[in-house]
C-alpha cells in the first residue's frame, strides 16, 4: 500500500462523490457559525424552503460584533446588534445550538470549538471564517468557506472542493526560551510569503511541533491561512488526545476507546510524499515582529526594517514603499526603536489560557509604560476568562495597568467599539496587519503574547528573550 499523508487520509475518508475533473463533494462533520458570514446563508436557506441537513453538526456563537466591556445592557451599535440578533433568531428558527453573548461558554468561534470538544481529530470542520484552519491542530481537515458555501453546507452537509497539493513544513530542534508558536508561524510566512501556501494544505511536523501544546499548535494552524494555505494541520499524538479527553462534546466510555484507536492512525505514513517541503531549524527562530502591512513583512526582533535594495522585484519594492509610508517607519530602522501607542493581547491566534499565562509572566509586578495609551487583554472565551481569573492573572494584568475585557474578536478586526485611531501604532497578538484592519489608518505590528506584554511595559519593542 502506498504511504499516505495525513491530508490524504482526512480527504479520502470524507469523499462522498467525485467528478472526472477532480471536483468532489466532501462530507462535513462540524459546522461552526458566527454572526457576520451567516445571515445571508440562512436567508438563502429560508427562501428556498430548505432546512439544515444535520442540525446537530452546527455550533453557533456571536463573536465579531460583541462588546468587550459591560454587556448587561446589550450592544449599543444598532447595526452590530441587528447582526447578533439575526443570528439568535436564525438559531432559534432552525434549532441550532448557540452560545449566546451572555453565556459563559461564549467566545471566539475558533477558541470555543476546541474548548468544547466540538472539534475532534479526524473531522472535517468548516466555518465562514478564514481562520478555521486553526482546528487542523487536532489532526482535522478544517477550512474557511464563503457565505454561499455556508448555505451549501447547511443544505447538503457537503462542501464542493478539489483536493489541494500537500506541503510539509518541518521544524526540528528546540525553540529558544521566549520563542513561541506565533514566532514559528511568522517565520514560516516570512520565508514562503503570504501566497507561498496558496493551493496547498500544510502539515506542520518535526520535533519542535511535537513539543508544542495544543494551544501552540492552534496558533500555528491559525496562521496557515496567512501563508495562503486554506488548511493547516498537525498529526494526532498523546498531546492531542489528552486535550480532547473529558470535554463536553467529546465521546465517552466505549466510544472514546474506539475513537482513540482511530485517531492514532491520523498521521502521515513513513515515506509519504509531499508536493513541497519547507524546513526550519527551531534554534534559529527569533521572536518575530512584523514591520509592514502584510504578515510576510516580518523580521526578527533584533533586526531592522529592510531597505528597498533587499526587495525581490519592482512589485515588491512598490509594496514596501507603500508600507513604509502607511506604517510611518523608515528603511533600516531598528525594530527596537519602534514605539507603540496601544497593545492588544487577544484574537483567535493568541487568546487561550497559555497565551495569557505567558503574557502575565512578563507583566507581573511591572507597569505599562507612560507612552502606551491603552493595553488590553481580551480572553478568547468566557471559560478562558474564568480560568485566568481563578489563577489570578486578571489581577496581574490590572495591577500592571492593562484593561481586562469580556471575550470576543475585539480589536483583531475592530468591528466592535475597540479600534485604533488613525496613525496609532499597536503591538498586537492577532494575525493580520493589513491597512485599516484594526481601525482606519491604524498601524499593526504582529507579535507573540510575550512580546506584546514586553512592548507594553517598555513602550517599544524589546527582545523578550532577555526578560523571561
Amino acid at each position, binding site marked *: 500500500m502506498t504511504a499516505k499523508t495525513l491530508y490524504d487520509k482526512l480527504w479520502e475518508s470524507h469523499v*462522498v*462523490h467525485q*467528478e472526472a*475533473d477532480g*471536483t468532489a*463533494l466532501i*462530507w462535513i*462533520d462540524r459546522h461552526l457559525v458566527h454572526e*457576520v*458570514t451567516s*445571515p445571508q446563508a440562512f*436567508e438563502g436557506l429560508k427562501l*428556498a424552503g430548505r432546512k439544515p*441537513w444535520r442540525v446537530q453538526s452546527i455550533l453557533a456563537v456571536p463573536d*465579531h460584533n460583541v462588546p468587550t466591556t459591560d454587556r448587561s445592557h446589550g450592544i449599543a*451599535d444598532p*447595526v452590530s446588534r*441587528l*447582526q447578533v440578533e*439575526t443570528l439568535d433568531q436564525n438559531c432559534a428558527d432552525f434549532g441550532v445550538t448557540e452560545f449566546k453573548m451572555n453565556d459563559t461558554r461564549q467566545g471566539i468561534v475558533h477558541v470555543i470549538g476546541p474548548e468544547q470538544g466540538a472539534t475532534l481529530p479526524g473531522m472535517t470542520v468548516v466555518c465562514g*471564517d*478564514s481562520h478555521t484552519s486553526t482546528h487542523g491542530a487536532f489532526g482535522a481537515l478544517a*477550512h*474557511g*468557506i*464563503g*457565505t*454561499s*458555501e455556508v*448555505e*451549501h453546507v447547511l*443544505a*447538503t*452537509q*457537503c462542501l*464542493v472542493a478539489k483536493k*489541494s497539493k500537500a506541503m510539509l513544513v518541518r521544524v526540528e530542534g528546540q525553540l529558544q526560551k521566549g520563542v513561541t508558536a506565533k514566532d514559528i508561524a511568522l517565520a514560516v510566512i516570512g520565508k514562503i510569503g*503570504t*501566497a507561498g501556501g*496558496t*493551493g496547498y494544505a500544510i502539515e506542520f511536523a518535526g520535533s519542535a511541533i511535537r513539543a508544542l501544546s495544543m494551544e501552540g499548535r492552534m496558533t500555528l494552524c491559525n496562521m496557515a491561512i496567512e501563508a*495562503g494555505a*486554506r488548511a493547516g494541520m498537525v498529526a494526532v499524538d498523546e498531546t492531542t488526545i489528552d486535550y480532547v479527553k473529558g470535554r463536553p462534546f467529546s*465521546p465517552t466510555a466505549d*466510544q472514546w476507546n*474506539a*475513537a482513540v484507536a482511530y485517531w492514532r492512525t491520523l498521521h502521515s505514513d513513513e515515506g509519504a510524499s509531499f508536493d513541497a517541503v519547507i524546513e526550519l531549524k527551531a534554534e534559529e527562530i527569533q521572536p518575530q515582529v512584523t514591520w509592514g502591512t502584510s504578515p510576510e513583512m516580518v523580521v526578527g526582533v533584533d533586526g531592522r526594517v529592510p531597505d528597498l535594495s533587499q526587495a525581490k522585484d519592482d*512589485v*515588491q519594492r*512598490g*509594496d514596501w514603499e507603500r508600507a513604509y509610508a502607511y506604517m510611518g517607519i523608515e528603511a533600516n530602522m531598528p525594530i527596537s526603536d519602534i514605539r507603540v501607542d496601544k497593545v492588544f493581547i487577544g484574537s483567535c491566534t493568541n487568546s487561550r489560557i497559555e497565551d495569557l499565562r505567558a503574557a502575565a509572566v512578563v507583566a507581573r509586578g511591572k507597569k505599562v509604560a507612560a507612552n502606551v495609551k491603552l493595553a488590553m487583554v481580551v480572553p478568547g472565551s468566557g471559560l478562558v476568562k474564568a480560568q485566568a481569573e481563578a489563577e489570578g492573572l486578571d489581577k496581574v494584568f490590572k495591577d500592571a495597568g492593562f484593561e481586562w475585557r469580556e471575550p470576543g474578536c475585539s480589536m483583531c*478586526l*475592530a*468591528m466592535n467599539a475597540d479600534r485604533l485611531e488613525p496613525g496609532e501604532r499597536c503591538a498586537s497578538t492577532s494575525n*493580520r496587519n*493589513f*491597512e*485599516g*484592519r484594526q481601525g*482606519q489608518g491604524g498601524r499593526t505590528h504582529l507579535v507573540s503574547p510575550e512580546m506584546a506584554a514586553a512592548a507594553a511595559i517598555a513602550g517599544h519593542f524589546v527582545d523578550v528573550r532577555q526578560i523571561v
Partner: protein
Amino acid sequence: MQAFTTLNGLVAPLDRANVDTDAIIPKQFLKSIKRSGFGPNAFDEWRYLDHGEPGMDNSVRPLNPDFVLNQPRFQGASVLLTRENFGCGSSREHAPWALLDYGFRAIIAPSFADIFFNNCFKNGILPIRMDAAIVDELFREVAANEGYRLTIDLEKQTVTTPSGRSIAFDVDAHRKYCLLNGFDDIGLTLRHVDEIRAFEAKYRIEQPWLFNQ
C-alpha cells in the same frame, strides 16, 4: 446566480500585489445582513478621503482623486486587472459581492487567494489566472490606450485584446459548467442526494462518536 458567457468590457488597472479583502470591503460594512448594496463601498478606504460608515450617503463623500478607479477614463469598467495574490485575507464573500455590485464581472491577475477565488465563481464573477509577464503587458497596454477593452469568452477560454491577440486561460470544468449556465451548487449537489445519504449511513456505523451531539 448570473451566468457568464462572454464579456466585452472596459479594463481598470489596480497596480498592487496582495490586495486583501479588508481593502476590498472594510469590516464596518460587514455588519449588513444583506448580499447587495456593497458596491459604493468597494475599496472604501482608498476610494474616499473621509472615513466611511454604513448608512452614509456615498454620493456626497469626497473622492480620492489619486485612486485609479476614480479616474474618469475607468468609469464603467467591468474587467479588473491586478497583481498577484489578489483577494488574500478573510473568507468574507462580501468582497466578491462588492466587486460585482461595483460592476466587475471578470478579474485578471497572476494569482488569487484560494477562498476569494472560490467565492468569485459562486457569484458569477470570472477570476482569470494569467502569466505575470502577460499581466505586465496588459498593464502597459491599458496605460497606453484610453478606452482599452478586452473580450472574454468563457466557452472558448480566451481573452482577446483590441489588436486581436487571443490569450488562452484555464478554468476547472465543473466551475466553467456552473458559470456558463448560472447554476448554483446546491441544486447540483442535491442531485447526489442518494449518495450523500448512503455515505452518512455508512459513516454513522464507522464513527458513531461523531453523531452524539
